[in-house]
């Protein structure tokens, strides 16, 4: 009896500091970010950008001091959930910003449902399912998802370039399907036709077979590959003497590919791609952000200009700051005021105005870029077009979009969309 009493006192004592922390004048933010593996560089840029955004408000919101805790992941969903649990239970954070990659996002959507009193603001993960299939009421995403990133490119190539027949080669996994879907919906609705689709298993680096199968009578080839796979394809495409025009998915012509060593990337010259930002965007919101980023860190401690990952974490932190300010720093009652403020937020981000829909998914601007020769012999991309207010359902009604099915190999029926269905 005495023992159990003692135990109860001990437990109560253990619980006290936590309770006290929640009442004090600080707000703790957990940064959930991949710092190991393929996205490590991007993850570091994410952390840098959270710090950058918080520095603009002197780490103080509504009179409360902001503390941050970084929780590193390795892009594996189970690590992500474990680190998120550590942030909530051990570090007692008030909100989480993160994660970085697609499958982590889906895992965090499910984990968010187990901590309904905390807010999770997505870092830069882009899987459609995260905010589309059974979304969590306390999971907010202020960046566009993978299918939105592909939107606007299709109508651009049909209307401005006159390319109406394409064959497509894309990576055979979730992001490949999702990014392709955004392109295909827009392309088919604008009157384009997809003649043949190829799906490339990830890491299968010999493309000879696919290159031989490419049909001759197409205007262009859409490539939804990334990283090493993209380089390998371009290399072998040139060796086979092929010269058809190319259209790139979001990661086909990003910095990883454009800064690769060797001339393989030269085949990309003139290729239009689409994504959530343009490096040479002239909008003052963007240029002032880039300037702020470059001035805040010495050149050897940052990237030449903010990365996609950095931008995502910056926007998420900006949203957290604005939301907390609107709620007056009040996190009581299951963070009700904060959540309401986030739902109503009209965020002026470096890439334009962002609003949330009923699934707490961003509606915003998608940019079309073209690959051109850069000043130093490298390739760079030039902004040629943008599409504002791209929403989660890609301009369709929820019912129409749901009828497309989830992203998969044959999710988009091109002929049906062309006919107006």
């Amino acid at each position, binding site marked *: 009896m005495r023992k159990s009493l003692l135990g109860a006192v001990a437990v109560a004592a253990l619980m006290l500091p936590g309770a006290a922390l929640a009442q004090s004048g600080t707000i703790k933010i957990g940064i959930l970010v991949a710092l190991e593996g393929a996205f490590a560089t991007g993850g570091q840029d994410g952390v840098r950008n959270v710090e950058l955004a918080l520095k603009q408000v002197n780490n103080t919101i509504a009179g409360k001091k902001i503390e941050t805790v970084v929780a590193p992941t390795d892009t594996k969903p189970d690590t992500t959930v474990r680190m998120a649990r550590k942030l909530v239970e051990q570090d007692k954070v008030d909100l989480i910003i993160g994660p970085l990659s697609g499958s982590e996002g889906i895992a965090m959507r499910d984990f968010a449902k187990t901590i309904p009193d905390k807010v999770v603001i997505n870092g830069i993960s882009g899987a459609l399912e995260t905010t589309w299939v059974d979304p969590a009421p306390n999971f907010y995403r202020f960046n566009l998802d993978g299918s939105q990133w592909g939107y606007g490119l299709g109508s651009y190539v049909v209307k401005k370039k006159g390319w109406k027949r394409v064959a497509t080669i894309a990576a055979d996994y979730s992001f490949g399907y999702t990014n392709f879907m955004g392109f295909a919906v827009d392309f088919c609705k604008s009157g384009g036709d997809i003649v043949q689709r190829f799906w490339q298993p990830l890491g299968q680096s*010999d493309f000879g077979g696919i290159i*031989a199968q490419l049909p001759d009578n197409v205007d262009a080839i859409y490539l939804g590959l990334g990283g090493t796979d993209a380089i390998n394809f371009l290399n072998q495409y040139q060796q086979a003497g092929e010269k058809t025009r190319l259209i790139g998915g979001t990661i086909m012509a990003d910095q990883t590919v454009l800064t690769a060593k060797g001339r393989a990337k030269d085949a990309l010259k003139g290729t239009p791609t689409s994504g959530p930002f343009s490096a040479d965007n002239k909008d003052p919101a963007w240029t002032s952000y880039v300037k702020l980023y470059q001035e805040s860190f010495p050149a050897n401690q940052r990237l030449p200009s903010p990365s996609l990952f950095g931008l995502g974490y910056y926007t998420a932190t900006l949203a957290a700051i604005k939301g907390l300010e609107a709620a007056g720093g009040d996190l009581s009652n299951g963070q009700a005021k904060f959540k309401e403020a986030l739902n109503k937020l009209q965020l002026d981000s470096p890439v334009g105005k962002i609003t949330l829909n009923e699934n707490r998914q961003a509606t915003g601007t998608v940019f079309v870029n073209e690959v051109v020769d850069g000043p130093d012999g490298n390739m760079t991309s030039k902004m040629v077009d943008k599409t504002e207010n791209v929403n989660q359902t890609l301009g369709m009604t929820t019912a129409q979009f749901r009828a497309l099915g989830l992203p998969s190999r044959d999710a988009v029926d091109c002929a049906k969309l062309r006919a107006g269905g």
Partner: protein
Amino acid sequence: MAKVRHGKLPGRYEMNNFIKRYPLWSVIFLLLAIAFLYLVLAPWPPELVASWGRKQIFLNALLGGITLGALYFLVAAGFTLIFGLMRIVNLAHGSLFLIGGYLGYEVATASGSWLLAFPIVFIVVGLIGLLMQFFIFSKMEGEELRQTLVSIGLSIVLADLMLWWWGGQSYSILAPQFLQGPMELPLVSNVNDSTGAVTWLRYPSVRVWILVAAIVIGIAMWLVLNRTALGMMIRAGVDDREMLAASGVRIHLVFLAVFGFGAGLAGMAGIIGATFQSLSPGEDTRFLLASLVVVIVGGMGSIVGAALGALIIGVAEQMGFVYAPTYSIVLTFLIMAAVLAFRPQGLLGTGR
């Protein structure tokens, strides 16, 4: 010493013997060979095109597999020689491949000559191999497990050093001007029904020439192994190391030579890998795995086995990729499992 000659191809006598002993199998093999030759040489009738796709696709997958096999062979040949002679499962072999590729990129960009990269990389990576054997593996001779574990450690250290120096970007080497673009091969790709005009198969010339080079290197290795005194020593060492040492051969020099040669070969394969595909961190383990599968299928320690294994794995990978993309990755491992189940010493391995 008949056993030593396991690398020799079956002669006329063995062939006749085989036909006498297995008449049914001989007929099946003959029919398969004729069918294969028909598929490769004859223009395809419309029914075949309807069910299998254009002939061009089949030929491209086949040639892609053979040329990929050539690359695998160059990596695996050194691996299998080193294992056959010294019983070292050198798990740092993939790192030698990657180092060779990076060095080849540096040499090719600095000098502007792709061909020059080959001798330089062969010598430099060969030297790295010599140093590894001299300072590390020879210190723990006979302790196979220890050598293997140390080679894993080496591969991790080397991978991190390369990541530090060359970064995480991908590198690709541009083939020289005279190897760029496709060439026409004397294989019929298509015959126009109305005009009768023949289209010949167009295939990337760099891959054709690399295949030729790999065949030349393979034959040269076979000749050295089977027709020279050094080759005799190596073959004797493969069969019985102790006896060879006892008969007065300075076996450590033979070990050094073989290790250096195998490493240099892997380094040259790195240049070819960077020209075919590209280099980035992680390619080292990919090619280590490929050469492990190749030597398990072909038989540990046999050069001809490595060639056969590389050909089978390369063609299976490419054919699977074109005709059953979902299962292509499983296919190579299925082949490996089948070989392990029915002929654990490998197709041309000696039963030891």
